[in-house]
């Protein structure tokens, strides 16, 4: 349902997501392609910019919050998921997307990812996984490979990395996909599937970082990725298959929609007291009748 009072057009165009602000990312940063894919996906799904809420964590990707259209919120490091979940439940007419890096999402705010998946909030979440903290100049993240020499780790990383897809699939998500920042078309289709999905859509984007992660540039990913939709008999509703095929992140890396629960019920549809309600929480702010509730204490 189109709720915006002022915009005249009914068809979303790429230009609706345009911003006059200049990008500040490094040359060849994966974020350029990701922004392009997000705009293309939202346009292709005809999601009006005035009814889209893009929620950004803190990190290199978050510095793009004012370089794209739509309503945006640029929150705190690690905390964007509960913000986006709280926004999504209050007005289901909005298309809510959230963006976070491997630093904020799998370090400081990792608990939020767990509970966003459990609650199955209707949010499409993009994990910008570039294997390091870029904005603070190249420290290790939870996904940095062991032995890598990073800022503040002159002799290499000693902790074992988190495998994001293994972690997410262990939580029985309703949607899990993987793509990489060198392929705008593949990212666009993956994000479209995530936006259409009813529930929490986890999309890991394997992202190049030309400044602090020389080990895995786009070419490295390009030569290793394999789209699961090209595999005969791959069934995305089979989580065991998703777990198996997503394991390898070194040699043959599975991308595409790895898992989707076809009977996913998003958060608000699960609320027992909201089954007969047709309005949104934002439409219901009015003085409530407390007299009966008070009488119960008499």
């Amino acid at each position, binding site marked *: 349902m189109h709720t915006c009072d002022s915009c005249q057009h009914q068809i979303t165009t790429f230009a609706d997501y345009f911003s006059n*602000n200049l990008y500040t990312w490094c040359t060849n940063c994966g974020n350029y392609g990701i922004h392009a894919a997000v705009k293309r996906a939202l346009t292709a799904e005809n999601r009006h910019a005035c009814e889209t809420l893009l929620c950004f964590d803190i990190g290199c990707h978050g510095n793009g919050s004012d370089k794209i259209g739509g309503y*945006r919120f640029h929150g705190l490091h690690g905390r964007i*998921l509960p913000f986006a979940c709280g926004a999504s*439940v209050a*007005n289901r007419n909005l298309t809510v997307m959230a963006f976070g890096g491997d630093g904020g999402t799998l370090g400081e705010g990792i608990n939020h990812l767990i509970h966003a998946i459990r609650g199955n909030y209707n949010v499409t979440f993009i994990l910008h996984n570039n294997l390091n903290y870029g904005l603070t100049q190249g420290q290790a993240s939870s996904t940095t490979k062991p032995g890598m020499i990073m800022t503040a780790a002159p002799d290499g990383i000693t902790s074992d990395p988190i495998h994001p897809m293994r972690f997410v699939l262990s939580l029985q998500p309703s949607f899990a996909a993987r793509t990489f920042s060198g392929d705008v078309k593949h990212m666009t289709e993956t994000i479209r599937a995530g936006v259409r999905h009813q529930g929490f859509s986890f999309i890991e984007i394997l992202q190049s970082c030309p400044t602090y992660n020389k080990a895995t540039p786009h070419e490295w990913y390009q030569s290793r990725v394999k789209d699961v939709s090209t595999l005969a008999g791959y069934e995305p509703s089979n989580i065991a298959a998703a777990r198996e095929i997503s394991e390898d992140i070194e040699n043959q890396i599975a991308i595409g929609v790895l898992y989707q629960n076809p009977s996913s019920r998003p958060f608000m549809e699960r609320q027992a007291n909201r089954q007969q309600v047709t309005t949104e929480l934002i439409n219901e702010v009015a003085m409530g009748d407390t007299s009966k509730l008070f009488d119960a204490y*008499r």
Partner: protein
Amino acid sequence: MHNFLNRYTLKAAGESGQGVNSVGEILAKSLKESGLYTFGYREYPSLIRGGYACHQIDISDQPLTAPSAMTDFLICMSRVSFHVYLPTVRAGGIVIHNLRQLQLTEAEQQLVVDRQLQLAYLPAETMAIETGGKSVMSNVILIGVLWQLLSLDLEPVKAVLRHEFARKPEFIEPNLACLDRGFTEVVPGVAKIKLPFTLVPVREADALLTGNALLALAAVAAGVRAYYAYPMTPSSSILSYLSNAYQETGMLVKQVEDEISVAQMAIGSMYVGTRALVATSGGGFDLMTESVTMAAMTETPFVCILGQRPGPATGLPTWTAAGDLNVAVYAGHGEYARCVVALSDPESAYTILQKAFNLAEKFQTVVIVLTEKEIAESLFQMSELPANEPIERGLVPADQIEALVSSDRYKITDSGVSPRWLPGQSDAVFDANSDEHTPDGSLTEEAEPTKQMYDKRLRKQVSMEAELPDPVVWGPTQASLSFVGWGSPKNTLLDVMKEWNAAHPEKTFNYLHYEYIYPLRIAAFMKFVEASQRVVLIENNALGQLGALITQHTGYLFTERFLKYDGRPFFVEDIIEYLERT
């Protein structure tokens, strides 16, 4: 019985898990239905079994809002609670217990003699089983004994028990039989009491509810549509009240994984345009503080109830304090406009939360609503709710939406308040940016735009201060002693004031109460202290935090301070002793 205060005090004591609180509630309800004013005060440990707990009911034919330290009638159901609470029994008081072969220490024996206490043992569990009930109905035997000794009519208690067990009707008859058994049992060595109060049947219709129940009702009245919380005493019961009512209200009531997420979800819901509420205690609020600054920076309304208990760290989880004013006033890094309000009694609980939402939305910032365990969990008697506050949202009116441009959202204005509209309302989209930003929310690190936006946000503090109500003077304009304070001490002072001032015309007191604490309004304070002979700061903390705030803003130094920080509220005796001593 106390010969000064017009009240009589009953205390049911036992260990955690013995149903002390439900005995207290049955007592309070039955006394109220008998035609009395009641005030229920709870002490309990942070344990599920053991320790000592009590539910104390003060009764009077005048309204009461604060507890006594001492008790006239103690019902004891556990040994530990007997030893803890025996010294709280007033001279001539009665102690009924069911503790077989109870041994009193020498000091306790002396205390019984000195105070002329009347002790009686009743094998209440055996009596309950003999009467056809279960051992837990010993509680009801003891209530029957109490009713007998107070010479009260049994019918109101029976009605309360019938109501209490309406869902388990098989328990009604045995309970009523136990009540009768206690009522008729001969209690050797204990004289009956004649309460000096006139019973007024109209009290039957009064409601008994906690400060937290009133906050839950206030949330409904304020149009709150989402409540997020992580359990933490003394705020957890707000979550229970709202979830118990959620079928009627349709409110989204969500227990969230931690207080950071609680705050973030609420800010998300508020940002898109509903009203969301959160409540926590000190430790949970500490976790929220970074998010609080995010609400301030993005100018998103945020309302948080901060239920105080003694800290630091885990402190005394189930006891009371008012030591978190500083954390509310100074919460978070950076400088920003915020509002801090503090409730004291049931009326303020209901009204202030509604006003807090209006302030938060109108000024697009953070409002922290302080309460205390003492207010949150005490049982207050009320005849009616105060009138609801009209909802003021401060949003751009529908007929002005079309003219909006993106840079209106954080437009530099004299008041500091810029137009606020909601995602989905207009194609004038904007970025709500926790980085410093220009009027459309675009990131900036330039000096001049930074200063302009910083000043704009801080100007809201001035605009807000101009709209807040002044602190209120209670009692006579002229008095020999003038208290200044906030929060629950107001209840104790007002409970004492009328009777004390009438009895001591040469030594009267009055009280200046801060409900809207920050931004601090000082004019009424300065006028008050200029007219006062002797000013005493009264606070339920050790540092005199309101006093320090006032000093910071006015230069006024409090030379006399009455501070209490042992986990207990100000009891009426504390005030009387202070007035007598000084």
